[in-house]
Every structure is written in C-alpha cells, then in structure tokens.
C-alpha cells in the first residue's frame, strides 16, 4: 500500500465498452483507492494464460487471467483485486469464478467479483470498494479479537436500526427499531441500549457505525469508526460464533440485499453483495408474513411445521414470488407449507445467485434479522448440506462488529 492510497487491481472484460469504467473509477476514488491494470508484456500474457490452463476464447478474458497470475506470483503488486465482467456472459462467469477462487487460494489479497450491466453505477459499487479498501487499510484493526472498554455499535440497516453497548467483551445493552427516519431511529435505539446497559452516553469510550446510514449517523454521533457492513458484519459474526480462527462463511440475508462472505482468521477474503431482486431478500419474507396474516417473528416457527416441497414457488422476482404465494393459498395449501416454501425459495435464490461466487467453508454462520426465521435457516442448511450456526444476538451482528472494532480506538481516545 502506497501511503494511504489503496491500489486495487482490476481484472475485467467489457466495462469500458459498457460505459461503466468511469463508475468503477468514481467508486474507488470515493474510498481513497486507485484502480489500476497490472502492466504485462505480450510475452507475459501468452505464458501466464497458457500456464493457467483455462482455454477461453475472448482476448480480454485471457488478459484478465494473465494479470491474475502476475498478481499471485507477485510480479504485479496490489492491495486488493476487483474482478468484473458483463452480466449474462457465460464464458466470463466461468473466468470470474475461477480467478476469484485462484486468487483467494494462492494469495492473501482480498477479492470482490461483480457482473455489471450498462446500468451499474458507482453507488452500487461503493460498499464493495469500501470493503476492499477496509481490508487492505485496516487489517490490524480487523484482526482484533476482543472488545475492550465501554463501546457502542450502531447498525443502520434498510429495514431495522440496531444498537449494542459492549463492555469488557460482553454485550450489556441492546436496542432495536424499524428504520423510519434514519437519525431518529438511531437516536431511539441508542437510548434503548444505554438504558438497558445502565450507562450514560458520555461514559462511552468509543462509537462505531455501519449499515446504509453509517455516514449520516457516524457524523451525528461523532463516531470513531464508520465502516461498511461487509467487514463489520463478518467480524461480528465470527466473534459471536466463536470462530475467529481458521475458515468460516458468513451469510447475511438482509432486508434489501444479501451478503455472503468467505472469512479467514476473522478477515474477509472474498465476498458478494446484492441480489437480483428483492425476491431473494428478507423483504419477500416480510411480504409472505403479511399475506399469511402473521407477524414476521411467527413466520419461522410456522415454516418449521410445514413441508415446502409440495408448494411450487420461485421468488426470483418478488412480483412473481407473490403470485406463487397467492396461487398456493388459493389451491388450498396450508399456511405452514406456504411459509416453508417461501423460506426455501429465498434460500434457493441466495444459493443460486450468490453462494456460487464464494467458497463455502464450514462453519457456515447465518446472521442478521432473518437468521431468527428458523425455517429459512433450515432451508439454507438443507441446500448446503450442513448444520448452520446462528450465534446469540445474531440480529445485532453489525452493531456487535462495530462495537468490537470501535474498541480499537479506546486507547487512542
């Protein structure tokens, strides 16, 4: 890393022709990073491509492969890697996936991969770029395993806002509210958490914020740490699940998007974020609960009693998913079966769209509010053929991660 500028190597095919290269540059600049293309001679390209052994036809994919080999061999130096190719290109999808795996297995470089369309904006890429730079810039902070002092973490999510107070590695206060007005929701949960902890705001040694509203709340609360949710959530997950050493996989199905993170020794290696449609998010489960006339907290136990296999449901799109839901009820399927089918459908979308992009290593930890929906956890476990770990306070994962990481600022303060 040169000074404070994080250097991100771009391995790609098509962004310049899709008119989104500028968006990639803008996203990187916004987080103090610089995107560059590893410099290779034609002889290097020929040799590296041949050595890698994946015989693709497209020239730019051959170049991406050659650049990846150069990065792994240390011929080209970078702090992180951004792999991008056109959405809907099968050849590029194979290369993207294999390069991500290759770099992850043969180096310690953080990698994010993304398939873009011409509609991709810098805003879409921002959190991913921020996570890449965080891993490069704050590796020492991310290695923190114990919370110290009295710290608070606030997670401003798209659906809910959460706050956690921690002291000496223990959670002593929590607060939770649906997100309405961002600052007001944050103030509300902070009051709740402080009350439960029995401490005053001025007693806090450090504050961390994360989630969509992190910048706004961070500025408002004078936070010491303002950090994207990919690194914060994975840190919170491995801390609460007590798997800070070795490999693990963190899955967070959120209200608006999903995160799947491959973690090594508490530090994210590869991750994906997003979802094609809200049909693959917690939003669809909220709609399902509403349509079934139950509270979202009752959906999980309801789904556990049902057999989703008998109900055809595909929530690739939330509109079609809702149609399936209505049709299933009209055909006389029970609420329990429909709830189970909805959970299975969301798990299946996340499995097909996102989990293919990271290496699943056990233990698999599910976090976020949706991890409390047992039917969803069971469905994901069935798909992955593994026992999913849901740690205590899993719905507060972002806040816990923020409180833990913020404690790195305690001594400084």
């Amino acid at each position, binding site marked *: 890393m040169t000074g404070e500028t994080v250097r991100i190597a771009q391995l790609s095919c098509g962004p310049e022709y899709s008119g989104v290269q500028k968006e990639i540059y803008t996203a990187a600049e916004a987080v103090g990073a610089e995107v560059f293309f590893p*410099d290779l001679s034609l002889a290097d390209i020929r040799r590296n491509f041949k050595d890698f052994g994946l015989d693709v036809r497209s020239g730019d994919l051959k*170049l991406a492969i050659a650049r990846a080999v150069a990065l792994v061999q240390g011929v080209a130096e970078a702090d992180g890697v951004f792999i991008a190719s056109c959405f809907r290109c099968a050849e590029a999808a194979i290369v993207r996936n294999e390069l991500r795996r290759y770099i992850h297995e043969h180096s310690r470089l953080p990698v994010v991969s993304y398939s873009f369309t011409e509609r991709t904006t810098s805003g879409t890429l921002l959190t991913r770029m921020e996570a890449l730079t965080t891993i490069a810039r704050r590796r020492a902070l991310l290695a923190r395993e114990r919370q110290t002092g009295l710290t608070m973490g606030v997670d401003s999510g798209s659906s809910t806002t959460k706050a956690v107070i921690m002291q000496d590695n223990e959670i002593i206060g929590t607060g939770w509210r649906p997100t309405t007005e961002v600052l007001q929701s944050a103030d509300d949960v902070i009051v709740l958490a402080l009350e439960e902890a029995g401490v005053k705001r001025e007693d806090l040694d450090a504050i961390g914020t994360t989630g969509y509203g992190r910048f706004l709340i961070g500025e408002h609360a004078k936070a010491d740490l303002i950090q994207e949710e990919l690194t914060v959530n994975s840190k919170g997950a491995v801390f609460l699940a007590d798997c800070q050493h070795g490999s693990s996989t963190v899955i967070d199905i959120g209200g608006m998007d999903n995160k799947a993170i491959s973690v090594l020794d508490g530090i994210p290696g590869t991750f994906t974020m997003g979802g094609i449609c809200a049909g693959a998010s917690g939003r669809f489960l909220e709609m399902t609960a509403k349509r079934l006339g139950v509270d979202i907290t009752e959906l999980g136990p309801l789904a556990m009693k049902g057999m989703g296999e008998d109900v055809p449901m595909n929530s690739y799109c939330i509109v079609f998913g809702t149609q399936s839901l209505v049709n299933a009820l009209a055909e006389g399927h029970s609420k329990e079966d429909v709830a189970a089918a909805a959970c299975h459908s969301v798990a299946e979308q996340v499995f097909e769209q996102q989990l293919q992009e990271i290496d699943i290593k056990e233990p698999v930890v599910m976090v976020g509010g949706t991890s409390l929906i047992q039917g969803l956890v069971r469905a994901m476990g069935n798909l992955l053929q593994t026992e999913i770990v849901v740690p205590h306070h899993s719905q507060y994962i972002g806040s816990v991660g923020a409180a833990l990481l913020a404690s790195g600022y305690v001594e400084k303060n």
Partner: protein
Amino acid sequence: MAEVFIYPATSLILSDLVARFGHKPLGTALSIRERVQTAGLDSPPLQMTPDDAKKGLRWAAVEVPSGVRGRMSLFGPLLDRAEAAIIVNNPDFAFGCMGCARTDELVEFLVKQKEIPVLELDYPADEEEGIIFVRKVRDFLKGLAGAA
C-alpha cells in the same frame, strides 16, 4: 475505391494492406502496444458511456451482454457502410484482438449476412503461410472495384 471492413478492427497490418491497394479500411485502427496497461487488449475510447451499449441494441438484443452491445455501437456503423470485408480468424494478440469472442461471432455473422465480397482467412502459423496470407489479401483487394 471500396470501403473494406477489417476484422480484427484494430489490426494495423490489415488497415495498411487495404489502404495500399487504394481502398478505404473500416477499422478502429488502434495500435496494440507491446506493453498493455489499459483496460482491455483493444483499448476503446474511455469516453464511451452507457448510452453506447444502448445504441448497440440496433445490432444485438437486450439480453446480449452490455460489453458486446457497446462494441457493436462502434463496429455496427462500420458494418453498415462496408462494401467488402476481410476477416482473420484466431489472430495473434499482436496482430489485433477485439477482446470478446462473442462479439467476434456476431460480427462475422453480420458480415456474411450482408452479401458483400468477404475474404475469411486463418491467421498464418509460419512464414510460408504468411506469404500465402498476404497474397490472398492482395488478390482479393485487387479484385474489388476501384483498386489501385
């Protein structure tokens, strides 16, 4: 003088050959440098915008990847003007490379649909094949109307 579409469009050698025989080469005529520091092998103008991928819809449907459509927004207008075409299959990077194999397939198909004179050649593997390659290009270009 005929307007001759060349593919790979970045090939300076093809561009030069076409011009030598008195025709107008239709290509992007961008050199492949010995050291590649830019985004792709064919280094397009970075002022391309998402609108270019939309312009490409004239030649490729919306489900076609945006990179292919963006490329077609550059090559499509050249194809429309083309009165003849020379296509070189499996060229070496240094000869010219269009970056995307799917675009190659589409461009070659659209060229053949136009019912214009087309010379399709494999990239030569050695000097002897190279001489035959140049001879075939020369004969093709001489046979076009308005050759020098």
